[in-house]
């Protein structure tokens, strides 16, 4: 355990230093992360305005709180691994990672967290600006805000493990773009990025509850906004832990099978 902590510390130092060289590029990639929730915020505010003041319990200030929170939660949990893994396998750079006496997922976690540390000031600035423009209604409930901290941590872990496992599809096919797109689209609707889940049709909501999407994005946000009862929060943590266990098992199984059939140039 201590060995792993040391490795993480060292890895952080080098990754942060190298990512800081690309801060402008990383900042440009963030534009989409800010713009997407902003677009839906504007659209739903217009819907609320066209209906007098509110839609299904959401007024314009509630939408503002929801989508600004969505921007931050999504930023905290997103990964780009599904778009990168195919390149690693096709170009054989995975071979080097396999030679190290450390599971490659650890460097990916460090990369992910480092890039977020670098972009955090920009995201907070964007959130502050949007809050000033759209005047969100924020009614935090103390226990729920406290519960938000472990919820977002679990959400990050589950989303990371699941997307890392799905990225391994590249071991079997190099045409992963269709898989990535299908997953991305499902996530868009089922994790509440297009609209709060409460506004989606019942069947869609049911699917979102069974699949991991709600638990990796929407659930922490619902907690933060004080929209859950203590019972619902507990059930949510249960779902998160269940998905955590399941994704750990899946990751192990798929990784082993994938590495066995991996044959890179020179391997």
């Amino acid at each position, binding site marked *: 355990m201590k060995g792993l902590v040391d490795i993480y510390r060292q890895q952080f130092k080098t990754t942060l230093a190298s990512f800081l060289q690309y801060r402008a590029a990383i900042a440009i990639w963030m*534009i989409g992360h800010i713009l997407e929730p*902003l*677009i839906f915020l*504007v*659209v*739903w505010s*217009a*819907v609320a305005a066209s209906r007098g003041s509110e839609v299904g319990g959401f007024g314009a200030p509630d939408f503002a709180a929801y989508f600004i929170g969505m921007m931050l939660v999504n930023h905290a949990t997103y990964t780009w691994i599904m778009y990168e893994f195919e390149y690693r396998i096709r170009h054989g750079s995975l071979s080097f990672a396999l030679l190290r006496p450390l599971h490659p997922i650890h460097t990916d976690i460090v990369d992910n967290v480092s890039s977020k540390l670098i972009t955090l000031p920009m995201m907070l600035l964007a959130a502050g600006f949007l809050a000033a423009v759209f005047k969100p209604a924020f009614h935090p409930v103390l226990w729920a805000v406290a519960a938000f901290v472990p919820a977002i941590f679990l959400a990050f872990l589950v989303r990371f493990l699941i997307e890392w496992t799905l990225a391994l599809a590249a071991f079997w096919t190099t045409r992963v773009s269709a898989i990535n*797109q299908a997953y991305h689209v499902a996530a868009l609707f089922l994790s509440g990025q297009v*609209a709060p889940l409460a506004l989606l049709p019942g069947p869609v909501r049911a699917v979102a509850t069974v699949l991991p999407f709600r638990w990796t994005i929407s659930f922490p946000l619902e907690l933060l906004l004080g929209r859950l009862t203590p019972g619902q929060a507990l059930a949510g943590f249960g779902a998160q832990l269940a998905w955590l266990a399941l994704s750990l098992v899946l990751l192990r199984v798929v990784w082993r099978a994938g590495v066995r059939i991996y044959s890179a140039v020179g391997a």
Partner: protein
Amino acid sequence: MNSLRLFWVFLRVSVLSELAYRANFFLQLFESLVDLGVALAGLAVVFSYTDTLGGWRPDEVLALVGVFFLVGGAIHLVIEPSMQRFIEAVSEGTLDFTLTKPADAQFLVSIQRVEIWKLTDLVLGTGLLVFALVRMGTHLGALQAAGFAVTLVAGGIIVYSFWLMLATLSFWFVRVENILVIFQSMYEAGRWPVSLYPRWLRFSLTFLVPVAFATTVPAQALSGRLTGRTLLGAGTLAALMLVVSRLVWRAGVRRYSGASA
């Protein structure tokens, strides 16, 4: 005439090389259909709660999405792949080969690569557009059709000039691939009428990254809300940007020192 023939040759070469990878067509078709499905599902959710969005009726927004796919398809078909290859050529010094050819280099650079399967977006976008027009039920007058054609061409020219100017920056800064991402991110906002957005964002989408002229304005022409002022503005901006991007291009080429020179 000559340039049309050249474009035809480039198109044929792309088709021939892509025909070897026919599975890519189905992959691209799948992705385009999913994209379209997402757009329609998003509209369905929004319009299940209202029947007008900032003054736009559902079918009018549908037509806007059609234009969005049509223009986006054109960008992904020629402009984006060509500009990406152009930027690579500048940083690797292989632009020499293009510059020494006896045709206009800007033209060659702009059409050098055609991602033929992206035609699916173009076709689907056109289909959606026609579908929306039929549903609107309004008789499309000659004047409206002409307004649509003019604003669509103007929007295309504006977007092309914008891309060319961004890509030409590579003569000065070499690595500009990431700047192109700005347009790709901002273009997403064109799915919805820009009049919805707060003033600062509307301004950015109109003049800083000209998404509005490529999507909202042509859609406005179809639904009969195009004003003479907007039409004139789109035409003027298109002409202006064509000239300015040409000047920027020439200044850039003068700066280029090549791999062997």
